[in-house]
């Protein structure tokens, strides 16, 4: 037992798993028709470099799951503008008029979901749950086509869990294995999305030697690959 434990430590020190990924290897993992979750809230906490690589790959017929539609030239708005997105699942698109226009023209399908429901559907998927029961949206058009379950004299909507093929998330500090911290309100949907996709790729701002185990927010076990993006805003 002790001997095995020692060898585990040695293995970690010697050949720690390398999750760093470059642009070409990342693009090779992309396919037409994929569902992709993208972290961020009005592009605060959106991994813009990874979004740019999806743009460059020119994969099409995407289903994007994101809190919002970003801005016309920021965040997932870039993929909506390029016509790569067939379906957007979001809580709000009001600050991206192009998303509204494309929806009106019928070339973008938009499924609007209350924000608290969307994040909990994602959390549920990552947690192995089939769905959640929420009072939000009862007696509104959000209720249409959904099962209403009455418990303790309150009506709840049954909202199914949401997962994706790929999640693109943005972290602040990242260690060699992929433990993550986030920066201020750039956290938002990222920790939940990190648990809810088959493949999870993180754009960290800075690679650090160590993160205090007490402050790790997303454990490395959820992260398949990462890139170190630096701080684009500080550079500009």
């Amino acid at each position: 037992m002790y001997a095995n434990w020692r060898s585990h430590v040695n293995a970690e020190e010697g050949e720690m798993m390398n999750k760093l990924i470059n642009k070409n290897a990342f693009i090779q993992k992309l396919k037409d028709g994929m569902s992709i979750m993208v972290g961020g809230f009005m592009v605060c906490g959106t991994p813009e470099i990874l979004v740019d690589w999806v743009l460059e790959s020119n994969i099409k017929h995407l289903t994007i799951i994101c809190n919002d539609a970003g801005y016309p030239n920021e965040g997932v708005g870039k993929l909506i503008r390029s016509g790569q997105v067939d379906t957007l699942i979001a809580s709000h698109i009001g600050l991206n008029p192009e998303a509204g226009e494309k929806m009106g023209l019928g070339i973008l399908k938009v499924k609007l979901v209350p924000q608290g429901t969307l994040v909990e559907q994602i959390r549920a998927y990552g947690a192995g749950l089939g769905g959640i029961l929420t009072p939000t949206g009862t007696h509104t058009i959000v209720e249409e086509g959904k099962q209403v379950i009455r418990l303790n004299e309150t009506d709840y909507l049954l909202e199914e869990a949401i997962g994706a093929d790929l999640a693109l998330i943005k972290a602040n500090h990242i260690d060699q294995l992929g433990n993550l911290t986030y920066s201020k309100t750039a956290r938002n949907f990222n920790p939940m999305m990190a648990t809810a996709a088959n493949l999870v790729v993180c754009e960290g701002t800075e690679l650090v030697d160590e993160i205090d185990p007490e402050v790790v927010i997303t454990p490395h076990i959820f992260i398949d690959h990462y890139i170190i993006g630096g701080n684009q805003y500080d550079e500009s």
Partner: protein
Amino acid sequence: MMNPKDIIAKRVAKELKPGDLVNLGIGLPTLVANEIPADFEVYFQSENGLVGLGPYDEKRIDKDLTNAGGQPVTLMPHGMYFDSSLSFSIIRGGHVDITVLGALEVDQEGSLASWIVPGKMVPGMGGAMDLVTGSKKVIIAMTHTNKGIPKIKEKCSLPLTAYRQVDLIVTELAVIEVKKDGLHLIERHPEVSIDEIINQTEAKLIINDVKVMEV
């Protein structure tokens, strides 16, 4: 008459008590923060993931610190950040004392519409449906009419944000309380008569004891 928005913000601020956890919607409701007396502590929550929202400060702009409208803000002492799941646990779980938001329509039963005008404008509900469903008290802060067209209706004609969740409506003309038996006009602007308010309101108002708004 003062700017209608300032009248509304000032009156809504009177509803807040020391120690309240408050969510202010984007637009007019954010003005309420300017009207809180300095000796009085309330905590502002923002659904993108913080408690302790502070004012915009051009010297402290941080692209990782925004409000729910994506605009730069600051964090007050003892403030903290959290993810969207915890944020909506706070909201849906009944831990927010007061939510203040605008509306396109409010009706006699306390239902509101604020997120879609079919065929015209479809911004989406964002966090509004969760906020009005989960908060202990829901205050609508809006102008009384939309360029003369009443916004306080017998029945909302637009798709609802929530059914029967509104507690108080504050406009530049009146303060209206939503009770089981309907809408009670409880305050009027000092320069506006009860009849003028009735004329600009489609819903039936119950009128017993109407005080004068402090403006």
